[in-house]
């Protein structure tokens, strides 16, 4: 159809309809062609599927926007405090609402900043035990996900737009047909559920249809944890002096990471008074940020972790059942390692903890548990509590069972909620093919993705910021979600969807949740509701208001006596798969050890058509699967912020890469960006490789989440990158690692856009490192690593900063490089997404970057390091007192404020870029083109109204969140008082789970920042240039075990 036809068809349509129907229209080929004609000069960028131009232009073109004007309407339900206290709305002043952003069922507790009804920024919920004010990068990007016009927008049946009520009646009739067989043919496939109210709905459905089956599948499920007996460990690192990680990335991944990071780093805040810190040993199958923080790091193949754990247990005098061979004898170093660690653990009984990796098999978890028990850690540093999941399930087995049923044609009605199995299910299940055999498939999700495409009914899901909910956090704390806006599109919540299969469909989410907890307040379903200080609430209403206000229900944490989510579907459904673990739960370690043929055939329910897992596995390499640190399992692939967020360690953006060791690269003659073919158990995928120091020699790590075909305009893979899909290789019997991988160099090259090319420090001490021993012996060792010119070395009189003197310290001992601060900065400061092509040219716009170094020496030295130390260093603007950038600006567009900020005056900047050339820290960013999107309405709703949106040809940089400083100044003035220390919290500081960033007034000797700056491990980056940075770093201290590292060994050399 041509555009005039579109226009005529839309004539007289009102806003919502207008945009709703065109939303799908935007996907038709005609429309794409029309867009091509519309922006011919963009042709080049169009071909780059990740091109920023395509992202923005298509966003503006996709008429998702017309409706957005109507999006800032508050929802009809009463949410606190808006309806009851409209006087709280002060134009220009944001309101904060406690809510949660669930990931795989687990709540990430947040406070959402809302400007006049527009959610614009997410902060952590400081009162919530799982957050303490921190958030991770993925949660930070949720606001962009909310305004993404690519979201599924309405209910469709076979791609025809229909009404929700039509769906409801259709489901009722479908259910009626199932009555006879008690729902024999009904299957639900959802992510694991933690929400009590949703669980209750689910239970009631299963009550009505006892033979219906509920399958749960989270492709990133912590199979090791969940599949063991329904207990999971909750660690308390604040009590641990010695930590052993068995392939555990507990600082970055997993629902408890934020709290764990805070507790862990609190134990290593060395001050001049307190010179003690914990010690972390990490045994790893692939470099992780946790390993990077480790005082001792041992790279092993994933399959060697279990034998290692057994060996360690043996050394620690713990009798662990069963044996597994490493397939090789431990080297002398490894034996020394084991002995030393065992000794150290033994020396810290009750103050140590052994952490099993989420992606390690149950056996390792069992070993870790028995170690912890033997070491008397249980109850102090770790507690084993009932699972937070409503009904813990071996999820791989569960979806395998579903696949078998679908293949047998037993499934008449399949309801898929929040999962994208066509993309994420184990490849050997051939889920897509079998989905065709399902009578009626209903899909509920945020996007019209690969699975939605094959389902009859598509129900647009609400974004977490659009709906009510009560998911539980990692420790079981019930967390209340409240909608910040009415659904932008025709979204339906999970509650509403499941409700459609109950006797009274069509109930509202808010009512369902509130009603559940009102009943719970009255003591039903086993909950005991108390205030945080143990008192009882006067009324259910008071309780509910409190809960919604605080964002969580105190006392529901499993660690302090909260109960597991009740789930009573009446007669337990005779579902063999869901409850009893099937043999597939065999430790994949064994699989790796013995030839693949030996895998019990029972674990591969597959049609003859499927390639046999025992197929061609000539390779001798080990493959390791990991979720992508930014796009996770691909569900965030359409989020520009996350795509452009440099991934930890490699700093790669917009793409994935297979991690290989330098030795392996040399064997196959591979360079970064060479595309290799990955042959594993009969399936084939391709991926560009990246050489990562510290990667075990014979292991290849691949990350999920890329190669999506229907992610959206931002996330869709190109023809080339469609093959970069790790799910193609994943089989149901070895979800996280397996042997038999073969890599073949294809000779193709693929452009990897990384924001950091050089990971060696060239002996420049950008990160100053010392061991705790050295530091406590000579506290001035840190200063000795650089030279600070005396302040007298100037002819000029100095400028005095009499009022305030803003400064920041960043503790490199705490920082572990998770990059949440970068995401927060992006969200707070309206930083544009520039796209892969621009990033590859070195034009990323991130004001705050996190540098990663693998070596303090030269690049050549790094070549020879198999297991280098890794360092992360966040680098914002240093706000130099003698700023080199200011002196060279011809128009005074950057000048010093009276409080010592290095101000950037955007509308005075002419764009000579001299300031950036003269900035030794290279923290300035330039709008080489018009990066900011000035046309897309939905992005206007997203923007922070307190921050200028920069235009083309303008230099920009970190301002210490000057808008927040000014806000605090206004408040202080109005209340006629001085600005309190800690009143101003920069965006990066706010999210930091490690509490590594501290901002404040250096003129106030009592301020936290002033005290930290007085520490002897405080240093300024490139201080010898006499720039006098206001942002300073606290040196990275390591606490190595003297038995493993002689104190003499210094990784850094004096200047």
């Amino acid at each position, binding site marked *: 159809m041509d555009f005039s036809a579109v226009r005529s068809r839309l004539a007289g349509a009102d806003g919502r309809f207008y945009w709703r129907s065109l939303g799908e229209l935007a996907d038709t080929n005609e429309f794409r062609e029309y867009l091509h004609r519309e922006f011919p000069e963009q042709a080049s960028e169009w071909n780059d599927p990740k091109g920023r131009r395509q992202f923005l232009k298509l966003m503006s073109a996709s008429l998702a926007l017309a409706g957005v004007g109507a999006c800032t309407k508050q929802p009809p339900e009463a949410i606190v405090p808006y309806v009851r206290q409209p006087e709280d709305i002060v134009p220009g002043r944001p309101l904060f609402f406690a809510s949660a952003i669930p990931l795989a069922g687990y709540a990430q507790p947040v406070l959402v900043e809302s400007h006049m009804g527009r959610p614009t920024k997410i902060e952590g919920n400081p009162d919530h035990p799982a957050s303490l004010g921190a958030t991770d990068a993925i949660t930070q990007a949720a606001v962009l996900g909310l305004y993404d016009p690519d979201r599924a927008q309405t209910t469709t049946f076979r791609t025809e737009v229909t009404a929700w009520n039509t769906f409801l009646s259709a489901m009722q009739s479908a259910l009626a047909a199932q009555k006879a067989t008690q729902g024999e043919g009904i299957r639900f496939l959802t992510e694991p559920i933690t929400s009590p109210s949703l669980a209750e709905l689910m239970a009631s459905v299963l009550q009505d249809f006892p033979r219906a089956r509920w399958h749960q599948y989270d492709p990133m499920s912590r199979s090791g944890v969940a599949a063991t007996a329904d207990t999971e460990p909750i660690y308390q690192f604040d009590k641990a002096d010695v930590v052993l990680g068995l392939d555990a990335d507990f600082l970055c991944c997993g629902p408890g990471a934020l709290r764990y990071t805070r507790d862990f780093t609190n134990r290593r805040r060395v001050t001049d008074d307190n010179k003690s810190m914990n010690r972390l040993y990490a045994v790893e199958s692939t470099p992780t940020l946790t390993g990077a923080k480790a005082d001792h790091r041992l790279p092993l193949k994933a399959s060697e972790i279990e034998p290692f754990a057994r060996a360690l247990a043996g050394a620690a005098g713990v009798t662990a059942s069963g044996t597994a061979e490493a397939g090789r004898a431990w080297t002398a170093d490894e034996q020394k390692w084991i002995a030393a660690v065992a000794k150290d653990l033994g020396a810290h009984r009750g103050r140590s903890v052994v952490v099993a990796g989420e992606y390690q098999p149950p056996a390792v978890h069992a070993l870790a548990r028995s170690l912890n028990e033997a070491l008397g850690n249980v109850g102090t540093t770790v507690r084993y509590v009932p699972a937070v999941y409503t009904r813990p399930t071996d999820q791989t087995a569960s979806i395998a069972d579903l696949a078998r049923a679908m293949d047998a044609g037993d499934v008449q009605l399949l309801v898929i909620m929040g999962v994208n199995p066509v993309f994420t299910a184990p490849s050997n299940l051939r889920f897509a093919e079998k989905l065709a055999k399902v009578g009626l498939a209903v899909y509920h999700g945020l996007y019209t993705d690969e699975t939605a495409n094959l389902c009859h009914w598509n129900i647009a899901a609400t974004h977490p910021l659009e709906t009510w909910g009560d998911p539980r956090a990692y420790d079981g704390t019930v967390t209340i979600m409240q909608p910040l806006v009415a659904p932008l599109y025709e979204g339906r919540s999970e509650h509403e969807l499941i409700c459609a299969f109950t006797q009274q469909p069509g109930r509202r989410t808010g009512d369902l949740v509130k009603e559940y907890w009102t009943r719970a307040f009255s003591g039903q379903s086993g909950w005991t509701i108390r205030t945080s200080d143990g008192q009882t609430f006067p009324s259910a209403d008071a309780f509910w208001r409190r809960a919604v206000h605080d964002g969580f229900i105190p006392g529901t944490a499993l660690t302090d006596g909260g109960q597991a989510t009740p789930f009573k579907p009446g007669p337990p459904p005779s579902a063999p798969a869901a409850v009893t673990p099937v043999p597939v739960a065999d430790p994949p370690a064994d699989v790796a050890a013995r030839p693949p043929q030996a895998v019990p055939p029972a674990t591969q329910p597959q049609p003859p058509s499927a390639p046999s897992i025992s197929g061609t596995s000539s390779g001798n390499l080990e493959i390791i699967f990991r979720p992508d640190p930014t796009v996770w399992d691909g569900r965030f692939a359409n989020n520009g912020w996350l795509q452009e967020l440099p991934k930890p360690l490699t700093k790669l953006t917009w793409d994935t890469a297979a991690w290989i060791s330098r030795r392996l690269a040399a064997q196959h003659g591979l360079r970064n960006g060479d595309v290799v073919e990955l042959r594993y158990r009969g399936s084939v995928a391709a991926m560009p490789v990246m050489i990562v120091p510290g990667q075990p020699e014979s292991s290849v790590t691949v990350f999920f989440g890329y190669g999506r075909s229907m992610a959206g305009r931002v996330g869709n893979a190109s023809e080339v990158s469609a093959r970069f899909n790790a799910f193609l290789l994943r089989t149901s019997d070895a979800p996280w690692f397996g042997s038999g991988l073969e890599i073949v160099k294809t000779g193709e090259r693929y452009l990897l856009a990384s924001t*950091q*090319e*050089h*990971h*060696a*420090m*060239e*002996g*420049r001490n*950008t990160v100053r490192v010392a061991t705790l021993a050295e530091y406590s012996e000579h506290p001035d060792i840190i200063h000795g690593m650089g030279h600070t010119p005396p302040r007298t070395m100037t002819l000029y009189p100095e400028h005095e900063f009499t009022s305030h003197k803003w400064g920041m310290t960043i503790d490199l001992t705490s920082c572990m490089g998770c990059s949440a601060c970068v995401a927060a900065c992006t969200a707070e400061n309206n930083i544009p997404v520039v796209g892969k092509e*621009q990033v590859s*040219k*070195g*034009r990323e716009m991130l004001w705050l*970057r996190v*540098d*990663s*170094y693998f070596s303090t020496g030269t690049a050549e030295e790094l070549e020879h390091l198999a297991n280098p130390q890794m360092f992360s*260093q966040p*680098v914002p603007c240093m706000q130099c007192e003698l700023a*080199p950038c200011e*002196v*060279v*600006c*011809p*128009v*005074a567009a950057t*000048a010093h404020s009276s409080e010592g900020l290095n101000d950037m005056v955007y509308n*005075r900047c*002419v*764009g*000579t*870029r*001299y300031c*950036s*050339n*003269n900035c*030794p*820290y*290279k923290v*300035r*960013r*330039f*709008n*080489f*083109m*018009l990066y900011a999107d000035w046309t897309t309405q939905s992005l206007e709703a997203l923007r922070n109204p307190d921050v200028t949106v920069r235009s*083309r*040809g303008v230099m920009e940089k970190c301002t210490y969140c000057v808008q927040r400083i000014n806000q605090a100044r206004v408040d202080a003035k109005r209340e006629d008082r001085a600005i309190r220390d800690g009143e101003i919290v920069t965006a990066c500081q706010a999210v930091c789970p490690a509490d590594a960033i501290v901002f404040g007034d250096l003129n106030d000797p009592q301020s936290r920042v002033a005290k930290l700056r007085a520490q002897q491990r405080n240093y300024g*980056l*490139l201080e010898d*240039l006499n720039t006098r940075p206001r942002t300073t770093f606290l040196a990275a201290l390591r606490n190595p075990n003297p038995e493993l590292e002689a104190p003499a060994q210094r990784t850094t050399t004096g*200047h």
Partner: protein
Amino acid sequence: MNSKPVSTESYTPPRVLEGSHSYKTITEKISSIVLTKHQPVAWIVTTAIGFVFVNILGVSVSYLLLKGIGIWGNNIPVGWAFDIINFVWWIGIGHAGTLISAILLLLRQDWRTSINRFAEAMTLFAVACAAMFPLIHTGRPWLAAYWLFPYPNSMSLWPQFRSPLIWDVFAVSTYGSVSLLFWYVGLVPDLATFRDRAKNRVAQYLYGALALGWRGSARHWQRYETAYLLLAGMSTPLVLSVHTIVSFDFSVGILPGWHATIFPPYFVAGAIYAGFAMVLTLAIPLRRLYGLQDFITMRHLENMAKVTLVTGLMVVYGYAMEAFFAWYSANAFETFMIVNRTTGPYAWAYWMLIVCNGLVPQVLWKKSIRTNTIWLFFVALIVSVGMWLERFVIIVTSLHRDFVPSSWGMYYPTIWDFSTFFGTIGLFVTLMFLFIRVLPMISIFEMRTLVPEAKVKGAEGH
């Protein structure tokens, strides 16, 4: 006053005026180049080619203004690249003209007479090309154009006079206008000649207007010579100051490879070097094309070759000193800078530069080569390439790997970088050839003073 008798000692250098010429023949020879309907085919072809590139320049700049400098290869850390390289390169070339007119005048080098006119023209056009880049390199010249000059405005905002870029604005604009004055003042008597010789009425009016009614009165000549000498005296420090200030753009920065005290003299030498090379590049073909061998004699070419050789050695000394300081300072960043220049990803540029600026010009030690126009021409061309590479090395190589290793990057020029650069060369050639077409490329009245009869018998020298 600028007419010195050719010394009659044992060694008689080649004369600065070959053949037997009278006032009349000189006048006719030079003015005939302009006051004619016919132009050599070479002129038409060259101008046409130049004009094609002017259009390419127009397209490149328009696209630049449309999209921003993102169309170039510049990035962070390499914020400056072709834009500033070209600026410095052109400015350097633009030094020869004023230098020849002013300094050689003060040094009473009569051999300057036949080359100063088009050398000055070259200066003007080179400065015009150079001045473009500071304007367009922001991608928003409409801002650069009016925010870089001080003028009272409603926001009472002023330029920031500590920035070398502002010094540039003043230096380049002063240099441009003073060179124009100098050039025009020199032209006036010749314009009078054209006024009196032109057959075409329009030409008569135009030249007449430009000649301001010059009639060669002795009283006028007296003030004229005074003013001309003063101009020369002031242009000499000016011309030195301009490239000194351009070098401040770098030496005021803190970047290793920029922050060096040797930059001003080293840049000035480089400018003279590049300038003379360009004069040779232009003089040799023009001389052949218009049969000016009598006026631009071997002596001119040889002298220019010698100046090129000497300044070339100064530049090489600069390179050597940069390396020496890097080592002697024992500063890790400085040392790395040189190592990176000589062995890093852009080492090819550095070594090409050493060949072009360091080795090749050494052939000029040989008289037979100094007096061989073909050789001279190509040596001069190579020097121009070398000087461009010098700026590439200084700007790009220093920027791409500076202090913090994490922000090291690479720079790759785009098609638009090249089109803009070659566009300015086209502009330069076109302007040059138009000048040859409409104005005397050799100062006629000064040439007359070289005729033996011009010496007044009995008049004591001065």
